[in-house]
């Protein structure tokens, strides 16, 4: 009787879970057929891996350093224009990645004032590793901000007030109390941001089709060689993401 209540959600939910699981399992079972080492040995592939392993951590670090303090302020303070700031934080989540990429090009592309100035001093902001970082940061930063904000919001403010009363200034209180207590949420946010950054495709395609990252390399190889050509690199990308995820859990 009581399990009958669960029949409908179990059927519906099972369907979508099966749809999440099926591609995953099919993909993993495909890996046996492919020659992973050979697939990863071309210089193009190794460049792509290196580029991704350089850019995604940088984008994640930038997002974390700039985003966590913002998350704390959003969790604790009210100020005029807060709604606008909240809107800005979710904007990159809502904007489709290709549109986000187009936006970045209109802001810092080769023919814009900023972009041409930067290119003139030798740091082009598009079609460069810096461009990849810009694209990844734009798309991935909201994750750490939103998750960290929820983490800070879940801390009873009185724990911070007690720390103030015990003689610690706001910065020391943030370091001693808020940060350690929100650290799980912040880590989760960092992982989400990293996963989003290293897997970033749409905006990167627009802003920096070259140099290739793992996702753009996968696309190019797929066009040239079909699904079998990309299994090794796709598996590597998935593996890096899952390892980072597992490392912090």
């Amino acid at each position, binding site marked *: 009787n009581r399990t009958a209540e669960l029949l409908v959600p179990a059927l519906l939910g099972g369907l979508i879970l099966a749809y999440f699981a099926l591609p995953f399992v099919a993909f993993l079972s495909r890996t046996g057929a492919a020659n992973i080492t050979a697939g990863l040995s071309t210089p193009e592939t190794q460049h792509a891996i290196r580029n991704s392993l350089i850019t995604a951590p940088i984008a994640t670090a930038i997002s974390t350093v700039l985003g966590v303090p913002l998350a704390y302020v959003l969790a604790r303070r009210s100020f005029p224009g807060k709604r606008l700031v909240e809107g800005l934080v979710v904007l990159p989540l809502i904007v489709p990645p290709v549109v986000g990429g187009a936006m970045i090009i209109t802001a810092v592309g080769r023919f814009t004032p900023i972009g041409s100035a930067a290119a003139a001093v030798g740091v082009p902001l598009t079609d460069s590793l810096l461009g990849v970082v810009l694209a990844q940061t734009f798309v991935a930063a909201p994750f750490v901000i939103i998750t960290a904000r929820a983490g800070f919001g879940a801390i*009873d403010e*009185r*724990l911070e*007030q*007690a*720390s*103030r*009363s*015990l*003689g*610690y*200034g*706001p910065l*020391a209180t943030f370091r*001693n*109390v808020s940060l*350690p*207590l929100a650290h799980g949420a912040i880590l989760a946010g960092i992982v989400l941001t990293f996963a989003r950054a290293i897997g970033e495709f749409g905006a990167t395609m627009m802003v920096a089709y070259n140099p290739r990252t793992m996702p753009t390399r996968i696309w190019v190889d797929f066009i040239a060689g079909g699904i079998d050509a990309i299994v090794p690199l796709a598996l590597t990308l998935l593996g890096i993401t899952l390892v980072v995820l597992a490392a912090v859990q």
Partner: protein
Amino acid sequence: MTLELEGVSHRYGDELAVSDVSFGAEPGELVGLLGPSGCGKTTLVQAIAGHVRPTAGRILLRGDDVTDTPPERRHVSVVFQRPTLYPHMTVSENVAYGLAARGMDREERDARTRDYLDLVDLEEQCDSYPTELSGGQQRRVELARALAPQPDVLLLDEPLSGLDPTLRERLRDEIARIQRETGVTTLFVTHDQEDAMALADRLVVMNDGRVAGSGHPRRLYDSPPTPFVASFLGRSNTLSGTVVNQDPLTVAFGDAELSLDGTNLRRSEGETVLCHVRPKDLSFAPAETNGASVSVTGEVKRIVDLGRRYDVTLETRTGDEVVVEEPARPPSRDESVSVSVPGDCVTVFDGEQSDSSRLS
């Protein structure tokens, strides 16, 4: 004065939470701040601790205006209703937390931490984490953490709320002992009159953002300045009477007349006044009336057996409802009984004042 509030008011947006509150605490005094929820107590705690800047008025600590001083430079410790121990620190680390901020060296810090854990009788739990402690133990660690830096003022914000009665009474005794032993100036904030009466050297009763009365607990209890204080500090009966003589003030309840020597009130003859008397001061007695006490008759409407006493509710001939606390042998329902009202237990209030500050 260790702590002084001068005309403190605070608004949240349009809402006036605290209005022109002034009181203070002498060194070593335990002041009880008592009032119903929403009366502004928490706002005052936040203002004294420095987490809220009052919209008007000043807060002084040891004579210095600290209204704009950040919390970390006030030397005011707070224990909140809900526990605020740091879950990522052990009990000792929690207690030592406030000492490190003051740049105390490791050895002295350890010694002080031990002293205060000893004070709350929890030396053995020093390496436990807060989640491993019982609710009562957590409260005691909070006390130790708040007291270890030897603050000028200790704020206790409803520290006994939500605890079981037995634990509550035990912790209350503990707080009394610790306050006595450390001599720290303490503001004890509560909505529970029994906790406040039991602990406080002096009471400040608040209602609706204002001070409704303050003074020695016993005097406030026996001679409440307003009907609000009368009913908030303990149960209160209101009898309406008519003034029949001015000097000495004599009030008639139906046929019976009572002369009230102690009051300074001036009332014209024929005026109606409200007289307050506590249920525990009433007793069932043979109907004899003299100058010092009066006998009021009524019919028993309801009897509630509370174990330690019976609450007998009766309706007087003049239509007032009166509760009598009877320790042993209650009358029966619908019985007609006489209740003896002793004159020295009666407080007379102005009719208007009573209306304005009645409990809503």
